[in-house]
């Protein structure tokens, strides 16, 4: 090739230069009609040019000869004529040349060939390198040649693609619904159900199966390659199948590592049993039971004295093999109780089990566990007794065996057994307690025995503490030995306590016992406490409550009779006794009790009132009146006066009631309830003027009585004097600041007067003054429009600290939204928050009437009865009504529920 010349411009071409030839240029033929189809310079051209060059060279040949090498002259004699002798000479020279050539030909050719081969080997030509491949090319068909892919420039394309992969664009919305459609059809999993199955449908089931089979294959391959040979035993395979799914590749990696580690452990220290066990467990975990068995088998051979390894081997094998293994094991370690027990467990027939255990006892006669197992296996009590007798001889320090033996023996023998046991184990309280129980079971007194035992035991070093004794007492109670329990409590309850702490400690003990449902123990503690402190009202009271809650009526009555004997001034105890009698239907008995109570406490208001209530509710109004008039003389209190007037009013004796009220108010002018009753009576009669005078006087005497003010304002409101009512409430609020009831009444006045806007402003003021009043908050929720109530109730709940009013309101909101379950849960919450709030009960009842069933209603009524609610706006209105007086609570509940307004408030 020609070298490039920089300054070629303007220079002539070298002689004989053929344009394009040196550059290797090739032409092209696009249109054969306008030019000859040929490439590059023609042969003729080249030949012509070469001829020209030769001629030119010949022309100035002298010049060439000037530079000829004188040593290599060629034409020294070529001017001389060529003659015959010259020819001969030439021939001779040629002959010599040929001869010389002939002589070394073989050697030279061999050398040349060798040389060529060597060069070929050192630097093989590319054609030679691919010669073998080239030979195969003749099989390539024409189509294959055609279909050879073009090389092309793929560098740029790849780069572009890589970039594209990293770019993310948001998915257009149109794709999402389409994808969803596809999912919906393909997840139907019933390809036959579709008339024309979509071609692009994905069959998830098949994919899942394929995945599973691939995973299984891979795991199989791994398991095979790990051990070097195919290990498929049917059992291991089946157990292995369970674990195939959970094993990830990481876990398998861990297994391999652990396997390696444990292998090194068992090779370096083959006498180390835990190593063998761990290795076997690993294989078991990996699902290769056979391997595990082999390993543990080897381990058994290496460490025959380790009982654990034998047990592991037995565990890993099936029952038959395990039996054989354990048989070997007991030969090696005959003292191992565990192995014997395991062997016995492997037997299915009781007889075989017994045989094994007896054999075991031959080897290990002092194992408690073996004895116990042997005894458990015996069905016949006689045999068991014989076994036990032998057992206690051999293992005299086992308390359990002694006690078990004692249980099986007759009373006399049992006593002997226990005495013997005590000789052997003098420090055991269990034996003593067993003895107590034995005594009690045979109807013998235990107290003295217990006292003696406690004394004996406390002399020993291992004496029980007081708490431990109490625990034992509770245990005895649980086992049905009440007397023993009481005796233990009596003997030990005051152990090691200071005189001053006695009562409080006992009370704590009793509470603890009640908490653990050990009522007998608690009763015993109270009994002992009452023996020590018979005049303590509080203990009597606690004992009575315990009896009421967990005892019989008789025991309670008996207790109360004793109680009032010791504490005749405890009204509570008297009343409780009377009530018990009454509830038990024994009205005369109750009267007797109350009569005794009068004698003991002639001035007790509570007892008087209880007596009145008893008479009034049993329809003995005459007696009640008489009792009240006596009471007014003997126990001259406001409450007595009030009850008197209420009774008169109930009986419809209005003039008498008014007379009584007047007398009462002279004595107790500050009794707002009397004033209220008077006002109500007057209002009922329609005597507004007198009623008003009554209230005017009343608020002068009792300015702090909120209900009085409200009643007064309602009176005015009913009379149509709304302004006056409003003013009255203002005055009331001045005198009783921060009273939510008064504020609520003001708001309600406005609501009743159809003054919703003003009501709202009033409510805002109210909430400012009483920000945590549930009453106001719940009312304010109802003042809101329907849409805003939800938001308001959240506020209300937060501010009012979950007051029952607000909770009920929340429940009602859910109810009005027909979210029944939620409403119910909120009602239950309200019930928990304040069970004394009657309105909550009533609303809940109304709700259940609408959405619940009979069972729920009944259940609710029962709970309400137990809770005895007394408060609540609607509740009080109904419960204190003359008509409902004396009705049971569940009926009142229904009435209140009926009196409630409709839940849906617009």
């Amino acid at each position, binding site marked *: 090739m*020609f070298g*490039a*010349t*920089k300054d*070629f*411009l*303007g*220079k*002539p*071409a*070298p002689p004989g*230069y*053929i*344009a*394009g030839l*040196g*550059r*290797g*240029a*090739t*032409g*092209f*033929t*696009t*249109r054969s009609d*306008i*030019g*000859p189809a*040929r*490439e*590059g*310079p023609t042969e003729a051209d080249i030949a012509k040019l070469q001829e020209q060059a030769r001629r030119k060279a010949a022309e100035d040949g002298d010049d060439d000869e000037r530079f000829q090498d004188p040593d290599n002259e060629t034409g020294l004699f070529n001017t001389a004529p060529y003659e015959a002798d010259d020819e001969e000479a030439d021939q001779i020279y040629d002959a010599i040349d040929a001869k010389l050539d002939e002589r070394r030909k073989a050697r030279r050719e061999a050398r040349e060939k060798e040389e060529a081969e060597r060069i070929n080997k050192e630097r093989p030509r590319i054609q030679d390198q691919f010669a073998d491949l080239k030979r195969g090319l003749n099989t390539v068909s024409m189509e294959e040649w055609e279909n050879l892919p073009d090389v092309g*420039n793929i560098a*740029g394309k790849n780069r572009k693609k890589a970039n594209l992969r990293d770019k993310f664009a948001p998915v257009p919305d149109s794709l999402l619904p389409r994808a969803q459609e596809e999912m919906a059809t393909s997840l139907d999993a019933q390809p036959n159900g579709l008339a024309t199955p979509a071609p692009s449908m994905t069959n998830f089931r098949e994919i899942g199966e394929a995945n599973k089979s691939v995973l299984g294959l891979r795991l199989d391959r791994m398991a095979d390659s790990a051990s070097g040979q195919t290990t498929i035993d049917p059992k291991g395979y089946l157990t292995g199948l369970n674990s195939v799914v959970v094993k990830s590749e990481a876990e398998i990696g861990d297994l391999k590592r652990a396997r390696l580690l444990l292998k090194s452990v068992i090779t370096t220290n083959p006498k180390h049993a835990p190593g063998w066990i761990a290795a076997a467990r690993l294989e078991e975990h990996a699902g290769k039971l056979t391997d595990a068995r082999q390993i543990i088998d080897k381990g058994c051979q290496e460490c025959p004295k380790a009982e654990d390894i034998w047990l592991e081997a037995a565990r890993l094998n099936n029952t038959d093999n395990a039996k054989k293994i354990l048989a070997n094991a007991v030969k090696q370690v005959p003292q191992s109780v565990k192995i014997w027990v395991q062997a016995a467990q492997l037997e299915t027939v009781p007889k075989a089990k017994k045989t094994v255990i007896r054999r075991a006892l031959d080897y290990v006669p002092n194992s408690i566990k073996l004895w116990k197992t042997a005894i458990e296996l015996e069905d016949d009590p006689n045999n068991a007794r014989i076994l036990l007798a032998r057992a206690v001889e051999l293992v005299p320090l086992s308390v359990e065996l002694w006690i078990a033996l004692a249980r099986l023996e007759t009373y006399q023998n049992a006593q002997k057994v226990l005495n013997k046991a005590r000789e052997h184990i003098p420090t055991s309280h269990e034996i003593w307690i067993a003895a107590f129980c034995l005594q009690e079971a045979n109807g013998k007194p235990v107290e003295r025995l217990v006292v003696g035992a406690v004394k004996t035991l406390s002399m020993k070093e291992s004496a029980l503490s007081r708490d431990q004794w109490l625990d034992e007492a509770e245990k005895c109670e649980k086992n049905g030995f009440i007397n023993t329990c009481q005796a233990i409590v009596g003997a030990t309850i005051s152990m090691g306590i200071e005189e001053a702490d006695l009562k409080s400690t006992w009370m704590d003990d009793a509470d603890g016992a009640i908490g653990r449902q050990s009522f007998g123990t608690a009763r015993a503690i109270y009994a002992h406490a009452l023996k020590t402190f018979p005049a303590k009202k509080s203990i009597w009271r606690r004992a009575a409550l315990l009896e009421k809650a967990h005892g019989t009526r008789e025991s309670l009555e008996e207790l109360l009779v004793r109680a009032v004997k010791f504490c005749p001034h405890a009204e509570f105890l008297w009343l409780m006794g009377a009530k018990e009698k009454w509830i038990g239907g024994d009205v005369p008995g109750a009267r007797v009790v109350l009569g005794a109570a009068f004698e003991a406490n002639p001035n007790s208001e509570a007892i008087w009132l209880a007596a009145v209530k008893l008479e009034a509710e049993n329809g003995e109004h005459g007696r009640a009146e008489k009792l009240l008039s006596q009471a007014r003389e003997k126990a001259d209190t406001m409450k007595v006066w009030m009850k008197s007037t209420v009774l008169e009013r109930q009986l419809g004796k209005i003039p008498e009631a008014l007379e009584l009220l007047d007398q009462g108010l002279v004595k107790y002018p500050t009794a707002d309830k009397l004033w209220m009753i008077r006002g109500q009576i007057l209002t009922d009669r329609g005597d507004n003027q007198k009623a008003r005078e009554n209230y005017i006087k009343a608020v002068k005497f009792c300015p702090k009585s909120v209900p009085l003010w409200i009643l007064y304002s309602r009176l005015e409101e009913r009379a149509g004097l709304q302004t006056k009512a409003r003013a009255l409430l203002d005055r009331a609020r001045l005198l009783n600041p921060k009273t939510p009831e008064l504020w609520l009444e003001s708001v309600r006045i406005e609501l009743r007067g159809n003054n919703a806007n003003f009501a709202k402003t009033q409510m805002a003021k109210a909430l400012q003054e009483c920000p945590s009043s549930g009453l106001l908050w719940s009312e304010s929720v109802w003042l809101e429009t329907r849409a805003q109530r939800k938001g308001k109730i959240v506020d209300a709940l937060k501010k009012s600290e979950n007051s029952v009013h607000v909770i009920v309101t929340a429940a009602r909101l859910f109810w009005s939204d027909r979210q029944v379950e939620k409403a119910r849960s909120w009602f239950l919450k309200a019930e928990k928050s304040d069970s004394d709030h009657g309105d909550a009960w009533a609303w809940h009842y109304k709700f259940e009437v609408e959405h619940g069933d009979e069972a729920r209603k009944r259940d609710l009524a029962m709970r309400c009865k137990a809770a005895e609610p007394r408060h609540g706006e609607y509740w009080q209105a109904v419960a204190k009504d003359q008509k409902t007086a004396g009705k049971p609570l569940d009926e009142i509940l229904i009435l209140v529920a009926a009196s409630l307004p409709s839940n849906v408030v617009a």
Partner: protein
Amino acid sequence: MSYFLPHLTNGWQVDQAILSEEDRVVILRFGTDWDPTCMQMDELLYSVAEKIKNFAVIYLVDITEVPDFNKMYELYDPCTTMFFFRNKHIMVDLGTGNNNKINWALDSKQELIDIVETVFRGARKGRGLVVSPKDYSTKYKY
């Protein structure tokens, strides 16, 4: 403007011109200086010569003076422009059916620069054929 551009006066010079450029496209205009088409083309070539000098060099060849390539490159048109890069003839798909050369006079400097740039980029990547940014097919002319 032919007199501003270098002329190659024999086949050797043409070969040297093609061989001597390592990193630039060699643009050869075959034709005669007096031909009107060539005049147009020369005008255009001269006007862009300075702009493309970093990646292309332009030579003019009189096909009557240097007839060596007439058959080889089928130089029968009045004006033919060809591109070479490292002694390789670069073909351009112009949409005319003849990818070997531009055998008419272009009339836009930008188009010419675009073609030369495309040739340069393609040739650098080892391509023997590049696609012209503009399709000069006659079907768009009507």
